[in-house]
């Protein structure tokens, strides 16, 4: 059982972005991927979700043994994969509550609906945990939300959909320290022996709140270094250049 990514290669147009990336996340584990801007972090998360702009040119990705790459976008989500987006999209006219209900209904057998009372009870409990005002249920998805509100809304969806594996793409960006604590608390509440996390971040700050078991460094489409939490601290102190210097001569 794991989310297993092996030698994954992907491109957009003519441009190679992932150049052979390997990671395995087991249930209960929290992995972090750190890397400079443009190294391919968001690309990895979108390729795993099946975004159609990207073409997978090699390698594999499986979720508990199931070939992710052969599934459609929505099938991947229902199979247990979740991505908290770096830039969540606005959906005009669709309320948060209707959106979440539709997502939960999609997980039920055909024709079966979500129990409305249980749904609202669950949603309100989760919103309280995230200190989100109840008015967000009636507001259109992400429309007019601040950066921080959008990120909370992503974590609310994570909490409601209870995936097996969750990828968080720069959930810390745009959050002030209080919001960061609230969001991290929400994520930590979802940590369990049955669930794996891949936390993508540019800064180590987030990792003070969501403590990873394993830290990877992504550069130029490849994992160039893997270590424990101390690696994140070292990156914060020294930047990314020393990793590059270590990695490049080996490649030369």
């Amino acid at each position, binding site marked *: 059982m794991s989310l297993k990514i092996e030698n994954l290669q992907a491109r957009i147009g003519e441009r190679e972005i992932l150049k052979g990336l390997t990671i395995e996340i087991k249930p209960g584990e929290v992995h972090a991927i750190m890397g400079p801007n443009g190294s391919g972090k968001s690309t990895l998360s979108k390729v795993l*979700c*099946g*975004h*159609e702009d990207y073409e997978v040119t090699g390698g594999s990705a499986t979720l508990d043994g199931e070939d992710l790459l052969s599934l*459609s*976008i*929505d099938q*991947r*989500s*229902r199979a247990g994969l979740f*991505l908290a*987006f770096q830039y*969540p*999209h*606005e*959906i*005009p*006219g*669709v309320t948060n509550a*209707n*959106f979440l209900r*539709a*997502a939960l209904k*999609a*997980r039920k057998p055909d024709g079966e609906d979500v129990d409305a009372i249980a749904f609202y009870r669950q949603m309100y409990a989760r919103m309280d945990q995230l200190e989100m005002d109840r008015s967000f249920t009636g507001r*259109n*998805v992400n429309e007019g939300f601040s950066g921080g509100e959008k990120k909370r809304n992503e974590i609310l*969806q994570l909490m409601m*959909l209870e995936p097996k594996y969750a990828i968080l793409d720069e959930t810390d960006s745009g959050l002030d320290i209080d919001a960061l604590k609230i969001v991290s608390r929400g994520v930590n509440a979802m940590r369990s022996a049955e669930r794996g996390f891949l936390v993508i971040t540019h800064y180590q700050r987030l990792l003070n709140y969501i403590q990873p078991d394993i830290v990877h460094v992504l550069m130029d489409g490849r994992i160039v270094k893997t270590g424990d939490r101390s690696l994140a601290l070292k990156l914060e102190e020294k930047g990314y250049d020393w990793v590059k210097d270590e990695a490049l001569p080996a490649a030369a």
Partner: protein
Amino acid sequence: MPLSPALSTSAPAWFKERATNAWSQFQTLPLPSVRDENWRYSNAKSIPLESLANADVPDSDVVKVAVAASVELEKWSARLVFVNDCLAASESSQLPAGVICVPFSQALEQHSDAMREHFMQRQMQLGSEKFAALHLAMLKAGTVVIVPRGITVPAPIEVFHWVSGENAAIFPHTLVIAEDNAAVTVVDHYRSCTSEAGFSCAVADLIGKPGSHVTYIACQEMSEEAQAMHLSSTVAGKDAQMKSFQLQLGANWSRSESVSDLVGKGARSDMLSVSLPLGDQIVDQRTLQNHKAPNATSDLLYKNALYDSSRTVFSGLITVDEGAHYTDAYQTCRNLLNSDTAEANSLPGLEINADQVKCSHGSTSGPVSEEELFYLKARGIPDNEARRLIVLGFADDVIQRIGNDAIEQMIHARVEEKFARLG
């Protein structure tokens, strides 16, 4: 039997005279040409004037079915049902004292002075003089609402107009006068009893005196063999707030002409519309926002979700008169193209003759956004359901601006029902 006016004998002389003049005007005026700027991309020949006939007095069975089907809003202050321009049911016991809400013929007899002052006093400006004349000449049904100063009508007034019979034509009229600081909401439904061909040629005039609030909703759900025309105007006095919403779901050809005159300082007019044409339906929309006073706001949002080989035409003009300083005027038309063969034409326009004016106009046409779809699918929602949510959301984005939950839910349900008819 071709169309011919049947004058009521009980109508006041001034009205009979106007109706008679209108009939000769209708006969003299030429059919608008496709070269007429107000008819670009459309065609007045879509209305089969030659084959139309006066609607018969309906059978009691037809009336019974129509009245039974005239249920939308749970709460209303008054409800009137017309079948073939004949009053079939009316209930107005929930109205506050002093509020007038009566069938057109009764208003002519009992409120002749107010009618004389306000009834169809405005020049048609968007190309349908001929059809306005036809309406006046043929007119015998509709609703006249007069709300005295300072009175708020709590629940909407809901009116149903049904047409029954092959090629039958109806001429529903709506006149709403909100006196100073009065508030009222009126909903007109236009429907066909069967899937037969027919024609509705409606006129709605909404007059908002200073400080009044008027919300007007027109729901056109005629048979897809029918044609529907809706000529409306709003006049917003000082600090008045007017809101009008056009729902175009039925008819194979529909045309709405909506004029909003902002005549008082600080007035506001919201002009909203949703359509969801399928098959080869054509939706023709003409609008005019006339700013005649300073510090007024008009905000227009029209949205069309097109399928199959349907077609929409949106032509909108904002005019800002000399002296109408500090005007805020916005005009947006958005078209969601859900098929390669659907076609949306947009003709936005501006004429500004004042200073310190904020104006914008724009139109967009395109398919469902891939990024929106991706976001929904990434949450496990299948493609067809994701598209359904996005299209209904596209409509709800306008519907939500009505600001009345019951009406919003009713309109959402009508749109959803039409959406369900898609393959």
